[in-house]
């Protein structure tokens, strides 16, 4: 163990009390089919701590009003809470300025925003956009739609059998036509953490901008956008213990300034006449209409909550669970792990030789265990592994080893029933 790891292990053992943390999440006391809920579907969405629920409720209970331009007290209070969330987010990912933080509905909208504004303006016929085999549909389809419209081409970085990007092949994809790279930081289906820093640096050698889909990374890894030097970064609030319907697009000012607005409407303008409209400054240029105010406030609260525990401690905790679960599942006969990369977040995908994931999901539900079964919105990735679907357990900051034991027990029962 090196010094940094030792310090982390020490800080984790001093600070992290998972049973105390669990008390912050009211939903964890729920019974499902008369069994305690074992929530292992955190890659789909995370549960919300009381702190986030209270902050969101307080907005509706005490100072609900529309933001910006209001002169009355409630509007000013709401504006202040909304804008302080933007600053919390800016500090959280170490952006240069708060004008680089755009509120969206979530990762999907953030990616669509870039594809339909930057993409429409700068991608032309014959140009090429690079993505990877392990992308979520939300980082495939917007680019495919753009390519169809512009007669451009989608190029795909292949992966190896452990679920890691083949970096040499990525390098080979570049040519004069390459105009954009959009890459997932951590895979929702495999858990693989991609070497995004290297991916970005290489693209920059060719003067190609890079968008990082950080939906699954933002609650596990400390992200510093200046250090990464990514041009865009997208993530959602609800995978970070915050509300649904709120997300973030980070963009470098240089690019955001060049891009046309995404949607037209209120808030995104500075002056409107019937002859011409001049657009508002950043970030408001990209925030037409009344936003999800409570959601933004909730997201700010979620980041405060997570930072209080410490992302490094959370990652350390989830890694312990991942190792424990990986080890236990590996002992079971007839189950194959899908995604065995060296660098992983707390996602464990597996495939039974003779039991369909849907049956696995129904059986585990009766044990109180919530996992996800299906293609996880990554059908091309499923095709790569020649399987229709996987069963996926994903860990969050409140999960325990005892919960992993309940999962493993459930899997053992399934193997008995299906007679392997």
């Amino acid at each position, binding site marked *: 163990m090196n010094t940094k790891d030792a310090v982390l292990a020490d800080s984790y053992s001093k600070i992290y009390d998972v049973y105390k943390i669990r008390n912050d999440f009211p939903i964890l006391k729920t019974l499902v*089919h008369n069994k305690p809920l074992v929530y292992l579907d955190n890659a789909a969405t995370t549960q919300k701590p009381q702190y986030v629920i209270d902050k969101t409720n307080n907005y509706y209970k005490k100072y609900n009003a529309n933001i910006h331009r209001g002169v009355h007290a409630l509007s000013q209070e709401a504006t202040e809470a909304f804008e302080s969330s933007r600053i919390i987010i800016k500090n959280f990912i170490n952006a240069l300025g708060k004008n680089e933080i755009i509120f969206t509905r979530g990762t999907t909208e953030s990616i669509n925003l870039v594809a339909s504004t930057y993409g429409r303006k700068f991608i032309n016929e014959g140009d090429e956009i690079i993505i990877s085999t392990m992308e979520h549909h939300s980082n495939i389809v917007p680019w495919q739609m753009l390519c169809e419209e512009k007669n451009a081409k989608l190029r795909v970085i292949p992966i190896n059998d452990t679920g890691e990007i083949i970096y040499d092949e990525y390098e080979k994809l570049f040519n004069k036509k390459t105009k954009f790279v959009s890459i997932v930081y951590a895979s929702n289906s495999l858990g693989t953490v991609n070497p995004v820093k290297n991916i970005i640096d290489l693209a920059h050698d060719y003067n190609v901008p890079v968008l990082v889909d950080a939906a699954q990374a933002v609650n596990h890894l400390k992200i510093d956008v200046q250090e990464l030097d990514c041009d865009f970064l997208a993530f959602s609030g609800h995978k970070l213990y915050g509300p649904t319907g709120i997300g973030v697009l980070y963009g470098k000012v240089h690019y955001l300034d060049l891009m046309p607005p995404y949607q037209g409407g209120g808030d995104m303008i500075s002056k409107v006449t019937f002859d011409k409209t001049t657009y508002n400054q950043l970030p408001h240029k990209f925030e037409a209409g009344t936003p999800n105010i409570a959601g933004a406030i909730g997201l700010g609260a979620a980041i405060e909550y997570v930072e209080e525990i410490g992302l490094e401690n959370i990652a350390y905790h989830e890694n312990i669970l991942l190792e424990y679960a990986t080890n236990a599942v590996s002992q079971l006969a007839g189950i194959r792990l899908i995604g065995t990369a060296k660098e992983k977040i707390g996602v464990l995908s597996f495939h039974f030789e*003779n*039991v*369909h*994931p*849907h*049956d696995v999901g*129904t*059986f585990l539900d*009766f044990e109180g265990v919530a996992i996800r*079964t*299906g*293609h996880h919105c990554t059908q091309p990735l*499923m095709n790569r592994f020649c399987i*229709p*679907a996987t069963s996926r357990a994903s860990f969050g900051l409140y999960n325990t080893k005892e919960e992993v034991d309940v999962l493993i027990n459930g899997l053992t*029962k399934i193997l008995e*029933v*299906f*007679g392997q």
Partner: protein
Amino acid sequence: MNQELRELYQQVILDHNRSPRNFRLIEHPTNFAEGYNPLCGDNINIFLKINNKGIIEDISFQGSGCAISKASASLMTSMLKGKTVQEAEKIFDRFHELVTDKLGDNPDIDDLGKLAVFAGVREFPARVKCASLAWHTMLNALHDKKEKVITE
């Protein structure tokens, strides 16, 4: 095992899942259709050989899916072989009523024979599509509809 779960995964279903009947290709079928459930990735191909008297001489299936969908296809093919097209349509209706809970608490399902094992599916709304995918696909094949059956 929990009672509801036991009702869903009866021995007959587990058996047909393990060793599905009529799980093969029919060369030169008179009728054929594909079914797909995008939610779970289940896909099924149904092949039929119907003679000029309107009798199903042979019926088979191929594809991949969960235990419920595989057992359903297996039992369906066993049940329909030798039946007329009209009889097959009628059994489809009865089966559909059974899994979508249209028959009430104490249904008279003697005519359904082994298909009665699917009564447990009613308690699992998310799984009704699994049980009925093969049947909808069969119906499409009977009527020679070209578009893929998609259930979700």
